[in-house]
């Protein structure tokens, strides 16, 4: 399959309702009773406990929860950076990880990291085309053209020869999303990617992410602590408990796509926001208390 097909308008992709897209759905994540326990300096830490979650193919699933509740650990397990202690994770009904097996990190689950991981020593374009070039999937020239196309879809024009250090934070993050998408992953994993951004830039970048999602219909696993962002972006919001993390509540966000900032003032959005705040508030308090106890 052409790595770049999603970058153009997909034949049959119905932007208004991606569920009607004729593109085959891949990227179904099935997390069953996953537990991650680790032992840094002999202190038995249960990061994730009996977490079960079904993410259908093509869903934009957002995880919210208090800090240090195991969300990133779970993401790392899906990505292959960490082992599961108990339970299983399936990708498209194939075993991805279990207590005995960890599929090594690969281009089918690409991560966009919290503080950005664009390679500072490569130009933006070289960063974006890294995956296909290194895997030998595309020749350099072909990859460059495809990369430029993808960058322009993200609203990044004229920076392909710049270095990450020379462009703004918002541009960097978009470039990183472009780099991830260039690999045509089955699942896009984002770990609080917009955390370091100011609110205004964030709204712009969120819109770009939504555009990418609408056009490509990838499964997205998105972690954030920003409740508004969660409801604005997600199809499903998963509220996570304080450590040890498990699923506390699932909230379906039935606001139709494509979404834009006008959604934020709708009644449905406000109702959902209340629901999420209610669920999270308790957990946030518990997390803070636990932290204070630990330090006391």
């Amino acid at each position, binding site marked *: 399959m052409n790595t770049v097909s999603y970058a153009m308008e997909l034949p049959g992709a119905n932007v208004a309702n991606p569920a009607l897209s004729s593109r085959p759905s891949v990227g179904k994540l099935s997390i069953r009773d996953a537990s991650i326990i680790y032992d840094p300096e002999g202190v038995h830490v249960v990061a994730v406990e009996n977490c079960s979650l079904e993410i259908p193919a093509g869903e934009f699933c957002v995880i919210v929860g208090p800090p240090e509740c195991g969300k990133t650990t779970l993401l790392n397990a899906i*990505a*292959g*950076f960490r082992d599961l202690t108990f339970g299983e994770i399936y990708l498209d009904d194939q075993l991805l990880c279990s207590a005995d097996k960890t599929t*090594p*990190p*690969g*281009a089918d*689950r*690409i*991560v966009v*990291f919290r*503080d950005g*991981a664009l*390679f*500072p*020593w*490569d130009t933006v374009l070289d960063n974006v085309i*890294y*995956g296909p070039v*290194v*895997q030998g999937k595309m020749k350099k020239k072909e990859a460059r053209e495809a990369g430029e196309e993808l960058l322009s879809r993200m609203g990044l024009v004229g920076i392909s020869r710049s*270095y*990450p*250090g*020379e462009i703004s934070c918002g541009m960097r993050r978009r470039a990183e999303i472009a*780099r991830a998408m260039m*690999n045509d992953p089955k699942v896009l994993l984002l770990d609080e990617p917009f955390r370091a951004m100011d609110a205004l830039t964030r709204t712009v970048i969120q819109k770009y992410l939504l555009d990418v999602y609408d056009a490509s219909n990838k499964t997205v696993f998105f972690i954030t602590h920003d409740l508004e962002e969660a409801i604005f972006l997600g199809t499903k919001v998963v509220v996570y408990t304080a450590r040890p993390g498990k699923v506390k509540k699932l909230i379906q966000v039935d606001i139709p796509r494509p979404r834009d900032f006008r959604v934020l003032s709708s009644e449905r959005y406000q109702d959902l926001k209340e629901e999420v705040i209610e669920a999270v508030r308790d957990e946030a308090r518990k997390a803070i208390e636990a932290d204070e106890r630990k330090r006391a």
Partner: protein
Amino acid sequence: MSAPGRRTTRGLAIKIQESVFSKETYRGSATVIVLLILWETAAQLGLPVIKNIPPLTSVLDAFREVIFDSSYWGSWGASFHRIFTGFIVAQIIGIPLGLLMGTSRFFREMTLPVFEVLRPIPPLAWVPAAAIFWPTREMSIIFVTFLGAFFVLILNIVSGARAIDSRYIRAATSMGSRRKDIFWRIVLPATLPSIIVGMTVGIGLAWNTVVAAEMIASRSGLGFMTWRSYVTFTYPLIVVGMISIGIAGYISSGIIRLLGHHITPWLRTN
């Protein structure tokens, strides 16, 4: 594009012109000129202590004579030859070794103890041993120069390689990198700044070492020339020697700096 880009010849010419006639150059030159004036004035006035230093005018006279003397330039050649050889060999051995020590825990644990015991030994203390070990005097001086540059290079590379953020490795692994891709596209570029630092400090240490080694153990080179001036009571030539060494060092560091600038383009932003 209206602003000169970094890749056009005209752009490069403009950049050189800008850097030569910049505020930086004026400020630096101003200080040098002021110091020279103070030096000459102090010598003329016969101030205590300073009056023992040859005055600027006699140093300039000595310079004028020596510039036409081929043995003076021969000294430059001899010193540069040692620096060049010792330094280059230090890079050829040191960079791969440093990268290996920085990336492989096993290898580092095996080599670091030996390394850390040898490192504090001043290169000059090696001169007698080197003189015995190496077949020629010249080789022993080059060896000692090599040592000066070698240890500091390894130190910098190891610390640079170990400090590579694991996010980059993870991102690269996710995108299907094999081990050699991780090395050539992540580890090496990420460590380049540390290599450049190691080279910059190393060239300075190499000069320190070569000058001193020449004074002890050689009959050629700028260091020897300076020492001989002292021994033969031609004092203005001592200053000539010292200034020559300073200029030679400045040129060497400038070359390294230019090289560093060229191979780490992403660090040019400020």
